[in-house]
């Protein structure tokens, strides 16, 4: 099987290309995804290749983008829409919550919402306001959705293909900080990574760190520091925050007895809270220290000049790992 070194952007384009080629029911649209190929170029070249009826620019209206996709699904299409930045998903929030997530149940299984809503998310790239948020917990709380977040080019391709193929609606959040930051060998042919299965990125014995998206790389850097201090970290990349892979989490915590979640969004009512709850629900008796969350502050991400205070540096992650490991 031939493979190629790809960035995450390239891997995503490749996944879309493969699916467009094999399934005429797939259409791609959103702001600037046509001629320009998206502001991050994920859809680059696809309009040329598949025509303006399959890959096209929509008017500038997120509720319209998502709402129209609900209708398309009723007729049997499989739209893959792009929200330019996850910070602009909120004008579409009602359509997502009220229709995308509910159409299947409301129609008792008659109509589904077999769509993917792609959106670059997350910070640390010195961007304008509303271009750095990480609000995946909001989507995780809406019944009826799946929420997927890849951390590598390989996973991005495999997960996007699964997302397009599942008959359930998927919020597909792409860590823009990773978009071009890492390159990886990715098979050129089609492959799928199941949604809902976490990946044990590194095995370890002293502490379980649970994370996803762009934070994975920061944790890996922190792990180098930890290793120097003799701390052995088991790193879990969730890959999907709903459904969440309780089994993998439980097995790991039962082994290590300690757990830290590392996520970007605000702390309160955030993903870390869910992870702590799962730790407690699945492995209470194994816990040797309080399950701990390292999350963003309960603030908006500061503009670039203040960004270094908000987004987690490897030092910050290491510091929290150390605290959990040193507990008692």
């Amino acid at each position, binding site marked *: 099987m031939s493979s190629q070194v790809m960035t995450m952007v390239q891997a995503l384009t490749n996944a879309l290309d493969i699916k467009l080629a094999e399934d005429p029911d797939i259409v791609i649209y959103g702001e600037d995804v046509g001629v320009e190929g998206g502001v991050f170029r994920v859809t680059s070249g696809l309009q040329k290749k598949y025509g303006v009826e399959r890959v096209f620019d929509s008017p500038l209206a997120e509720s*319209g983008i998502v709402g129209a996709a609900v209708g398309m699904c009723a*007729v049997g*299409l499989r739209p893959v829409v792009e929200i330019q930045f996850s910070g602009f998903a909120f004008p579409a929030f009602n359509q997502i919550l009220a*229709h995308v997530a509910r159409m299947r149940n409301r129609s008792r299984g008659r109509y*589904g919402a077999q769509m993917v809503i792609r959106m670059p998310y997350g910070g640390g790239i010195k961007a304008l306001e509303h271009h750095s948020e990480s609000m995946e917990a909001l989507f995780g709380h809406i019944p009826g959705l799946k929420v997927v977040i890849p951390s590598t080019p390989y996973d991005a391709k495999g997960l996007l293909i699964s997302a397009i193929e599942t008959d359930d609606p998927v919020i597909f959040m792409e860590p823009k900080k990773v978009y071009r930051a890492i390159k990886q060998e990715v098979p050129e042919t089609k492959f799928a990574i199941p949604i*809902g299965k976490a990946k044990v990125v590194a095995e370890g014995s002293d502490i379980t760190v649970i994370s996803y998206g762009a934070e994975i790389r920061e944790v890996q850097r922190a792990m180098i520091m930890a290793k120097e201090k003799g701390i052995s970290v088991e790193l879990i990349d969730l890959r999907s925050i709903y459904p969440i892979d309780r089994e993998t989490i439980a097995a790991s915590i039962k082994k290590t007895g300690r757990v830290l979640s590392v996520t970007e969004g605000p702390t309160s009512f955030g993903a870390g809270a869910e992870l702590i709850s799962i730790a407690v629900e699945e492995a209470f008796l194994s816990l040797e220290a309080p399950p701990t969350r390292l999350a963003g502050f309960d603030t908006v991400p500061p503009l670039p000049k203040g960004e270094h205070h908000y987004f987690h540096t490897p030092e910050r992650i290491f510091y929290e790992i150390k605290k959990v490991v040193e507990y008692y």
Partner: protein
Amino acid sequence: MLFEEYDPRDDKMLQVMDNDGRIINPQWKPDIPDELVLEAYKFMNFARTVDLMAVSYQRQGRMYTYPPNLGQEAISTAIGKLMRPQDWLVPAFREMSAWLLKGARPRDIFLYFGGHEDGSKFSGAPNFLPSAVPIASQLQHAAGIGYAIKYKKQDSVVFAFSGDGSTSEGDFHEALNFAAVWKAPVIFTIQNNQYAISVPVKNQTASLNLAIKSLAYGIPGIKVDGNDFFAVYRASSEAVQHTRAGNGPVLIEAVTFRQGAHTTSDDPSLYRSQEEEKAWSEKDPIKRLRGYLDSMGLWNPGDDEPMLEEYKNEVEKEFAVYENYPDYKVEDVFQYHYKEMPEDLKHQQINYEKFLNWKEAQK
């Protein structure tokens, strides 16, 4: 031609018959056989029977909140009569005639407003979305369906409904704009029944009328007398022709009046006068069409009673089906959310069933 003559900028309203059913505008009377008119008349009576009985069942505590259609039957009957099986119906919640003509049965309506999702399945009715509660949100779906129809080169038209209040929502705007840019085959019908719950149209918008909003999207718009079966039928047929010819969407404002309450929990006396209600009852759509039929010798006043009796029996039978509907099962809460049910959800169901067993065991 119709759209030009009734340009919404002139605020004219297409009317074919007067309050007594006299044809005052023969030029625009649709060219349809008498049988169709007769059928429509009967059907409006049937729909009204379902509606009135729904209200009374609700009052008896045998159903939950229900939004009466009384007085608005001409609009969705005329449009419903134009709908072909391959056409799509994207409803709001107050166009029951169209639901029935699309293939819903009274039992579905009772089931839905009786509080069961199975009432939204409409098994026998193709291309029919469930009712959308968040105002105007369904119009976006209509635009998307329109796109998909074009994309798949299907010969279908989308009929989307909403109320005067819906025109204020952002989704109304986005939907019409998307459909227009895409030249999607969608007919947007606004049932302007003068109120959004207690709020009169004049507090909803400062525009000359609602049809004129079409200009913001570069599409035809027309204001019609929504209590005039012929006017609605004519405007909608022309709209269908326009859109099937590939010209994109049309906006129809159908002027009517909700004779009943907003829903069974509403009290209209708080916000509108008896005079207003009385004036509108003069324009009742069924009364007007009966006037026409009378004058044409197509109907005797005496025919109403046996017809209504028959409908009442039919509806009672349908209601019985609803009342004997199987109990809501635990699975019904869970099973339809996902095609592939997540483990967490499965466990939630299992845990809940454990509780039910425990509860059972307590007895």
